[in-house]
């Protein structure tokens, strides 16, 4: 772990701030509040009033979120309050000015706003985990839009199955002139290469997909995002918030060797139209039933059938002149792929019904590989 950052202030906290500022800050850090109830302190948000500002922090030991709020500090100090509760209260407060006062002897924080007042029981700030340090980490600047777009297109291929931790992460890899991100749940694989201007850090880490999702949520403004890797932590900084996340240990699959070099067929299709067809037919692909794509005679027929439920089919013209080919896909995976490719045309590259298929847009900077479903019969 990284050294503790700030020494927790020793006095009793007393501060006043605007309701909207407080709400914005709580909105940022509350996603770091642990939902697991086993360690009570992790359900708390650390309020720390020092040096003329109010800092908020939360961590579930994997992901930490921190931000500061403009505030008038009347007495420096720090305290931990139930995070969810404080957020719920802040959302409902009647007036614009809020005061927070820690009453040490009663072990409560008093929240006052207009004629409303609340007393929240507190946790001991000594029990709050030391947050990973952001000082002393070598930070690099990346264009915010570029980074977030790459995250958005890649991270949905990450696995939600905790039994293979490496696959729950996104491989973030900087190399000269570009940023590469890859994610796979072993059924599909997304890889995006993005050119970067200026100096590019040389670093590589497997970052939990969930943390990147939170980054996209909190990085609302600003041109740049700073990032750095320090031991087992990855640090992201946006204009006014810091996100640190545990990096995932292990070897990311060597995905390059899994992407076929050559394909038998390459079928260009209008992306929006295909997406609509896939969405409509998917309604009848329930309980893991496959979506069937049949290519023949200048036509693609998409169909789905669920036993005891029903079936659907729809066709669209396709430039396909070879011998008929039928391949099955998981409906959600195909939808994700067509969606994330972007652009007007999607190129569907196929080898055979049991080999991986690849979806690409007009350029080659993004690739979505999808494993088929072996069809019955």
């Amino acid at each position: 772990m990284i050294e503790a950052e700030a020494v927790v202030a020793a006095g009793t906290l007393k501060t006043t701030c605007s309701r909207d500022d407080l709400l914005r800050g709580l909105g940022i850090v509350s996603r770091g509040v642990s939902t697991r109830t086993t360690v009570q302190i992790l359900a708390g948000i650390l309020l720390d009033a020092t040096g003329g500002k109010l800092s908020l922090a939360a961590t579930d030991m994997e992901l930490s979120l921190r931000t500061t709020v403009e505030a008038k500090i009347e007495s420096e100090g720090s305290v931990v309050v139930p995070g969810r509760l404080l957020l719920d209260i802040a959302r409902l407060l009647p007036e614009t000015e809020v005061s927070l006062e820690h009453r040490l002897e009663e072990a409560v924080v008093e929240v006052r706003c207009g004629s409303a007042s609340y007393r929240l029981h507190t946790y001991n700030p000594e029990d709050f985990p030391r947050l990973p340090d952001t000082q002393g980490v070598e930070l690099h600047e990346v264009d915010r839009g570029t980074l977030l777009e790459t995250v958005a297109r890649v991270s949905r291929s990450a696995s939600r199955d905790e039994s293979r931790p490496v696959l729950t992460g996104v491989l973030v890899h900087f190399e000269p002139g570009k940023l590469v991100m890859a994610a796979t749940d072993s059924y599909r694989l997304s890889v995006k290469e993005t050119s970067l201007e200026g100096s590019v850090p040389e670093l590589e880490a497997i970052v939990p997909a969930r943390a990147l999702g939170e980054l996209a949520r909190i990085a609302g403004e600003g041109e740049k995002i700073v990032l750095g890797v320090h031991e087992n932590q990855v640090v992201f900084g946006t204009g006014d918030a810091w996100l640190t996340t545990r990096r995932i240990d292990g070897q990311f699959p060597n995905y390059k060797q899994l992407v076929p070099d050559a394909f038998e067929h390459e079928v260009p299709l209008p992306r929006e139209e295909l997406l609509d067809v896939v969405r409509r037919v998917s309604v009848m692909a329930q309980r893991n039933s496959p979506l069937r794509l049949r290519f023949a005679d200048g036509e693609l027929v998409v169909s789905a059938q669920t036993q005891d439920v029903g079936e659907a089919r729809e066709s669209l013209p396709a430039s396909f002149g070879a011998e008929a080919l039928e391949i099955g896909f998981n409906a959600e995976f195909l939808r994700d792929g067509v969606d994330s490719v972007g652009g007007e045309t999607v190129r569907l590259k196929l080898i055979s019904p049991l080999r991986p298929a690849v979806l690409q847009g007009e350029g080659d900077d993004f690739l979505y590989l999808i494993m088929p479903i072996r069809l019955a019969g």
Partner: protein
Amino acid sequence: MDKATILHADVDAFFAAVEQRDDPRLRGRPVLVGAWVVLAASYEAKARGVDTPMGVARALRLCPNAVVVEPRMSAYSEASKAVYEVFDDTAPLVEGLSIDEAFLDVRGVRRLSGTPVEVAAQLRRDVRDRVGLPITVGIARTKFLAKVASGVAKPDGLLAVSPERELAFLHPLPVERLWGVGRVTAAKLHGRGIRTVGEVARLAEPELVSLLGRASGRQLHALAHNRDPRTVRPNRRRGSIGAQRALGRRPKTLADIDAALVGLVDRVARRMRAAGRVGRTVVLRLRFDDFSRVTRSHTLPYPTSSTQAILTAARALLATAAPLIELRGSTLVGVAVGNLGDGRAVQLALPFDPHSSDALDAAVDEVRQRFGAPAITRAVLLDRGPGLAMPVLPDA
């Protein structure tokens, strides 16, 4: 349920009987099947006190002129299939218990085939003629009593217990005949001077519970009064496919357990593929030195029958149970895959580990199909032997 229509059919000394059938020189002689441990003994050997499982060396001291035969699991599998064909031809309801025994309910076949006793006699002739094996049949109103009856009638016998003489039949029997009474329970009962089923029946249920614990106390009380409401249930499509392996009392390292797990997953995944099934929930079962048990399960996002996918999940479960194993030692490991579905439409996975892909599974299955299970194995299992791999019923 007022007529005795349940048959319990059990091949006598199954493995040994198959050996004696296939090799005339073994007939009439004591036969021990097994390499180091006696898996089965012919009645000639059992008469000399050989029991299963027992070390071969010890069995040979008891019965020096016995012939020791290496097990031929494929022959037993085939014999089992043939016996089950006879069962299926005999009764509409067949509930397989193991490779060589089953319950049959012959209610409703009276007009076609005769009384239960006539049906049972024909069944015995059919198994003898069509498969060449001796089989014993017990007939009663309940499953439990039918099984007791076949146990009493063994070997090569037929015994029907009519409803009016159930308790008269049951109560003089030694307690060991009751389902679930092994050496430990029998010793506890003997310690109280209880030797017959009738003496168990005279005890009140709370007494038995305090003596044997809640589950077995209650069970024994019910059985001693011949209360067994279970009906013969044709084995519906299985809800899970699993295998387990005893590890012995010697302390086991995690690597030992892992190796056993690898072998079990291999077997389970192969059976799933053979049955055309895929499953989502991987269950790890462990028994500890103190005989307590735990199960850990993990549900995968998509159904699979891939050896590698199941092994990855099983190993993750083993890792979470590692502290418990360190603390309490492990004597049994098992793995099962549940949440089974039809394996015809299977989501293929990327071959991250090029040595463990779907294609490899298919190739290994084919080799084993043609040359037998030991023809190909994992390196980690090379010096560990196959364990006592019992043939299993074909999975539906």
